[in-house]
């Protein structure tokens, strides 16, 4: 029964390649088809989530029935179950938004790339093999390049070019890292690597791990490889921007966390953690400082996203279970909030024809629901109590204190202060400046926005059940011994 979970990979792949046929049959059916496929995918993800949290056991799918490390396996544990649900749910909401937001032809290509982007992120989260991780990362990356260039303006091509060049460098680094680890251990399976990690050559482990992190850092938007992100966020179609921020980045961050912890038994491991902490810190500082001086609101949100991603990476690199859980919680909250904010800002761009700060004057009177959604998202990101991000920031601060990184606390508080500065400026512009005619808001999009707002507030008021789930998900990454024990390795032992 649990083998049906492989539909999570199979369904988007088949549907993506069914779209050219559908285009021949009926062109106007493409977008509704996309909505149906993502809805079914969400259903499967919800079923998998339910299954895993009831039985408490991960679902392991072995390709072709060969046991790992000979065969390739998918590992859907507590973490993957939650985040695949986030991926599919965000994709579903964004397909609904796409019907309104994407009017440039060819829509069939958009639908294909959209499904492949979703597939790539799902695969990155589910895979149990580092080379497969590379393949899924490239599926995600190539569809992301193409979607960035989708609008076919000069600017979107420029953003896509930056992304392609940085992504190419990153994937080469990643492959070199794989070569080093394979050369040292003779295996690619994550569980097997975890089992053999104490025997790895320390130099190969350190350099290999650092190269893998650099390779993933392109997609995970870590400084200094994130130069593509603000441009791509600004120029990609609006639903795609929301997807980048909501789950493409998160999938890469998860991969960073997983790869770090499976090698935690290797010698010299803590120096790699320090490297990641430094990268995360720089990412936060650069992101917040750049967000402060933006006049284009979409770009401002992009930089704010980068800063949050830096916080998540730092949480992953604290090296304690509470740090990992806090970061997973922050990933989850950030996914919801950024999906909401990019949806709202994209909707403003469609209705008012631009996302410059001046367009937001009087938005509270012109589009009250959208303005309300942006306000809730902004307040939440700053970390005001009774909104979801408050709890994950508190958990990050507690984890940093436990791990004796006191300056991280100062960094988180300082970052929140800068966020407050630019978000309050935006809120002030929306509610207290300018006048304008009322625009009739699309009821479906308003419903989606209110749904996400409700979600933010529910987590903000009742964080405990969510925090329980996130702790389980964090333990799934942190507890490598359990991970190795769960995967049925064929006749190998250290």
């Amino acid at each position, binding site marked *: 029964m649990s083998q049906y979970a492989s539909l999570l990979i199979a369904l988007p792949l088949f549907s993506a390649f069914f779209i050219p046929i559908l285009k021949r049959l009926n062109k106007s059916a493409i977008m509704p088809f996309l909505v149906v496929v993502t809805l079914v995918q969400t259903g499967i993800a919800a079923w998998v989530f339910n299954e895993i949290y009831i039985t408490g056991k991960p679902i392991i799918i072995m390709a072709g029935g060969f046991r790992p490390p000979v065969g390739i396996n998918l590992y859907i544990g507590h973490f993957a179950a939650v985040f695949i649900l986030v991926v599919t749910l965000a994709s579903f909401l964004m397909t609904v938004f796409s019907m309104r937001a994407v009017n440039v032809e060819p829509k069939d290509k958009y639908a294909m790339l959209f499904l492949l982007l979703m597939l790539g992120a799902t695969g990155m989260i589910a895979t149990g093999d580092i080379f497969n991780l590379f393949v899924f990362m490239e599926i995600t990356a190539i569809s992301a390049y193409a979607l960035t260039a989708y609008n*076919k303006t000069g600017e979107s091509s420029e953003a896509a070019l930056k992304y*392609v060049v940085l992504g*190419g460098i990153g994937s080469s680094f990643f492959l070199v890292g794989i*070569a080093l680890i394979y050369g040292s251990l003779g295996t690619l399976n994550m569980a097997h690597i975890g089992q053999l990690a104490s025997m790895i050559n320390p130099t190969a482990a350190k350099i290999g791990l650092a190269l893998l992190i650099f390779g993933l850092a392109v997609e995970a938007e870590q400084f200094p490889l994130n130069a593509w992100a603000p441009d791509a966020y600004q*120029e990609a179609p609006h639903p795609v921007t929301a997807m980048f921020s909501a789950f493409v980045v998160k999938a890469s961050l998860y991969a960073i966390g997983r790869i770090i912890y499976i090698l935690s038994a290797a010698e010299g491991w803590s120096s790699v953690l320090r490297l990641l902490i430094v990268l995360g810190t720089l990412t936060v500082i650069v992101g917040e400082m750049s967000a402060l001086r933006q*006049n284009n609101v979409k770009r401002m949100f992009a930089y704010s996203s980068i800063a949050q991603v830096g916080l998540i990476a730092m949480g992953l690199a604290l090296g304690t279970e509470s740090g990992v859980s806090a970061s997973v919680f922050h990933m989850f909250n950030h996914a919801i909030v950024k999906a909401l904010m990019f949806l709202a800002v994209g909707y403003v761009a469609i209705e008012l024809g631009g996302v410059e700060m001046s367009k937001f004057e009087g938005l509270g009177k012109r589009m009250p629901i959208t303005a309300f959604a942006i306000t809730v998202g902004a307040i939440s990101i700053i970390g005001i109590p009774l909104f979801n991000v408050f709890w994950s920031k508190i958990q990050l601060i507690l984890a940093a204190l436990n791990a004796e990184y006191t300056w991280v606390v100062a960094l988180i508080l300082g970052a929140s202060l800068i966020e407050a500065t630019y978000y309050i400026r935006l809120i002030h512009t929306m509610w207290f400046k300018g006048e304008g005619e009322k625009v009739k808001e699309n009821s479906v999009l308003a419903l989606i926005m209110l749904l996400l707002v409700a979600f933010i507030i529910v987590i903000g008021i009742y964080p405990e059940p969510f925090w329980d789930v996130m702790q389980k998900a964090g333990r799934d990454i942190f507890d490598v011994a359990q991970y190795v024990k769960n995967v049925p390795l064929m006749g190998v032992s250290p």
Partner: protein
Amino acid sequence: MNPYYFASIALILIGLYAILVKRNVLKMLVGLSIMETGVNLLLISVGYVSGRSAPILSEGITPDKAVDPIPQALVLTAIVIGVATTAMALSVVINLYEKYKTLNVEEIRRLRG
């Protein structure tokens, strides 16, 4: 140490140099391809054992007389992915040239801030 390692690292560095220093977009993409080739060579040389034959089962070739097949399979995949990336990048460049009428990255700078 295997001499192929040095050759592949040299190729990677040449590619990286081209990406970072060249101002023509096409030359940057050529650099990217050179870098990918270097990485593929590195992967292949990880599995290379001197004096053994290709990992194809035939008469007289037993598993202990063949090189490690996994890196070769990986490289095939990596080559295909590299081709896809290059094709994607070239189509972006075509569009870029139509819009900006130049291939110089210093002039392709409308997005700032």
